[in-house]
């Protein structure tokens, strides 16, 4: 196979951190090349350099044998590089064809474009109706829009940033068939992920980054997942310990909870029923955008529930606000760290006051006791190994993993009866993720009931006693997690959203 892209000694430094340090790698024509690494390992910076968003400080790139130094994404696209970002840039209120036209330099007539979209989407087994509104599409379908937008440019190199984080197992299968078809036509794919099993399934070569350096290239089909993980992390991984839990009292029960979504493109919760016992971890899986945020809000008290649908220790708590729920011991940690679980421009002390006033008595007669608040913030920092200069640091100055440890620790130290967490380890490095999972299991061992909402199935299988999945605002009946197969989980998550793949 010929060499498509050759990176030689790429270095990029930002104030205080070297994002890429002398990284060299080769991508051949027609291969699926995995780029592996933890958050902050420098994967994003590297692909941004290839896509013309960032200029390297030193080092050179060659594309199809010619020197390649794109000054902007347009130049990279003209050379044949296309990229599907993790976060979609689509307008909810426009339809598929309009969104694709917006990203083109010279869009053809809408009718021609719509026809082209249909052709390409059918050719690659990603059926898509060009006239549907983005707001009505599932996350998997939105990703198709982004992929087809790229395919219309006939790229030689397609970069995909964590594409499967929003997909069900069945949708992952469809996507992989598409990528395999592209590979057979000679298109190279640079596939960014930290999900090792998928990389072993799909990729021909894997390059592993750690702390900005290329620490090795391997054939993922031969290497074990554990060996690659340890190359990624640079240390031996700690697997959370858990004890089997005995059947105890019901701590929280939802009875056919139904709440309309507060926003136009949100997901309404429909007829959700489950209970969770003291000392138990209930894992709730599902593809992003199927009601996770709404369910977290309903449990935290940001959304009120109709009477009789949410029972805590035998009492109806559906009408209580967030602080009244904290009072009785129902605590939550939402998914979005910056702006929801914590105020980005406020100090860690102020962020301790955000949820800690009630249970930690941080206010008397309405006046904040800043001394006590500082002590509580320090307690969280010490107890959960949060790396930060001190309690005066603003939340957005912390790395994702450290802030997440702070947010989870802040709730755990308030000794919850029921703890709800949404995406507890999203975007968190492996060591911090292990620490957070262990802390949740320890909390359960002390008798708290825990509800973990996550899109990371490996995580849910690791820590849950029972598992249920959200699909379009409905929850499948919870079943014991031990012994569930990937196929069963996929069916609980709603299959492939009723969209049949067109691969033959």
């Amino acid at each position, binding site marked *: 196979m010929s060499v498509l892209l050759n990176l030689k000694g790429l270095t990029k430094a930002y104030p205080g951190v070297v994002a890429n340090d002398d990284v060299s790698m080769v991508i051949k024509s027609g291969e699926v090349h995995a780029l592996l690494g933890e958050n902050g390992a420098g994967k994003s910076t590297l692909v941004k350099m290839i896509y013309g968003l960032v200029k390297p400080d030193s080092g050179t790139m060659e594309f199809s044998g010619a020197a390649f130094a794109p000054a902007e994404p347009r130049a990279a696209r003209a050379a044949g590089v296309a990229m599907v970002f993790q976060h979609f840039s689509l307008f909810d209120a426009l339809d598929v064809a309009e969104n694709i036209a917006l990203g083109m330099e010279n869009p053809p007539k809408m009718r021609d474009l719509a026809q082209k979209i249909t052709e390409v989407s059918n050719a690659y087994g990603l059926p898509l109706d060009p006239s549907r509104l983005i707001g009505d599409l599932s996350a998997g379908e939105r990703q198709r829009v982004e992929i087809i937008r790229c395919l219309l440019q006939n790229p030689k190199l397609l970069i995909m940033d964590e594409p499967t984080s929003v997909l069900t197992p069945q949708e992952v299968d469809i996507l992989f068939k598409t990528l395999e078809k592209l590979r057979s036509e000679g298109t190279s794919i640079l596939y960014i992920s930290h999900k090792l099993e998928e990389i072993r399934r799909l990729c021909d070569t894997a390059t592993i980054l750690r702390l900005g350096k290329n620490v090795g290239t391997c054939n993922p089909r031969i290497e074990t997942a554990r060996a690659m993980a340890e190359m990624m992390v640079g240390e031996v991984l700690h697997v959370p310990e858990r004890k089997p839990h005995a059947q105890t009292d019901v701590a929280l029960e939802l009875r056919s909870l139904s709440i309309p979504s507060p926003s136009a493109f949100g997901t309404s919760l429909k007829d959700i029923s489950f209970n969770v016992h003291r000392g138990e971890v209930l894992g709730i899986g599902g593809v992003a955008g199927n009601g996770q945020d709404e369910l977290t809000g309903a449990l935290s008290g940001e959304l009120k529930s109709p009477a009789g649908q949410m029972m805590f220790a035998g009492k109806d708590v559906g009408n209580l606000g967030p602080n009244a729920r904290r009072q009785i011991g129902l605590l939550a940690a939402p998914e979005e760290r910056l702006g929801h679980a914590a105020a980005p421009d406020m100090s860690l002390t102020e962020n301790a006051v955000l949820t800690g006033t009630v249970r930690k008595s941080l206010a008397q007669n309405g*006046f904040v006791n800043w001394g006590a608040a500082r002590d509580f913030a320090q307690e969280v920092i010490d107890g959960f190994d949060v790396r930060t200069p001190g309690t005066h640091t603003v939340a957005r100055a912390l790395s994702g993993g450290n802030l997440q440890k702070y947010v989870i620790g802040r709730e755990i130290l308030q000794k919850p009866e029921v703890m709800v967490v949404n995406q507890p380890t999203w975007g968190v490095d492996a060591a911090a993720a292990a620490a957070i999972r262990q802390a949740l299991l320890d909390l359960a061992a002390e008798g708290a009931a825990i509800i973990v909402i996550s899109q990371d199935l490996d995580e849910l299988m690791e820590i849950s006693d029972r598992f249920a999945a959200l699909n379009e605002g409905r929850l499948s009946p919870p079943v014991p997690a031990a012994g569930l197969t990937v196929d069963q989980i996929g069916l609980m998550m709603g299959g492939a959203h009723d969209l049949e793949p067109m691969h033959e």
Partner: protein
Amino acid sequence: MIALEKRPEPSKLWSWATPILAVIATMIAGGLMFAALGKDPVESIRTIFWDPIFGEFAFYYRGQLLIKAGPLILIAIGLSLGFRAGIWNIGAEGQYIIGAICGAAVGLAFYPWDSFIVFPLMILAGALGGFLWAMIPGILRVKFNTNEILVSLLLVYVAEFILASMALGALKNPDGAGFPGSRNFRSYPAAYNEEIITGTGMHWGVVAAFIAVIFAYVLLARHLMGFQIKLAGQAPRAARFGGVNPSRLILFCLGISGALAGLAGLFEVSGPAGQISIDFNVGYGFTAIIVAFLGRLHPIGILLAGLLLALTYIGGEAAQSSLGLPAAAIQAFQGMLLFFLLAVDVLTNFRIRFGKREVA
């Protein structure tokens, strides 16, 4: 290329230095404008900033300083609470007018009863009038999600018509030989907001402004409500998660700013202005928006900004009369102050880097 780079934390130094930098930039740009108008820039700036405090007629101007700064500070303190929470009351001018009308109406109703209770009742009525006028955009926002910026602003014009109708009708001086305008409170001592210390301009409205500064400082630094106000402005979702009730916060912020604007109106009508007249309001409610931002929405900053803007008012008038500068030039000068403040404000959260352009 010059590039802006986001600071990891807002700079403490720059958040204090930017207002000073803005004042200096305003002096330079204003000086250029005055020069273009054919006036000596140095003398113009001196007339505006120096003479009212240290010049020949300073004994007169110094008193004016507090008289003008008092209502500006009082209104701006109220507005700053809402602005911090992302609640935009642009209609303080209307609340100021209604507060003045309500307070004056109570005073005039008791005329000529000479009792110490009259003035406190007027104060209550003034605050209540402003409060209720601000509740109109507040309740509309909470119940129907209307935009409080538009509603509060448009209510200013309604208030102006009510003012005109009062000056010509219900509150017209019965002994005024048919001239528009109410009785003058100077001739009704029980209701007159007199200077507390003669010649200083210190009247009860200025006292109220100082109390408001202290109140707002304590509220923001120590009280849970102040914390919730800051939280709602910076991170609305986090605020809801933290248990802040958005509707209650909207009503609280609009209510406080309305009540303080109403108080400012009452102290003005019963003191420096003396009577309800058709053109009683002179734009304090709008200028207070500048004061609030110039003071960085911080109580102490607002105190200083109120004094500074009062100075440009007084100095501006002096420059109009002594140098013949057009009134529009003075207004442009005051506008520049806000413009430069907002422009250099960027430095608090960003640092300037000279070099290659980067997109991180």
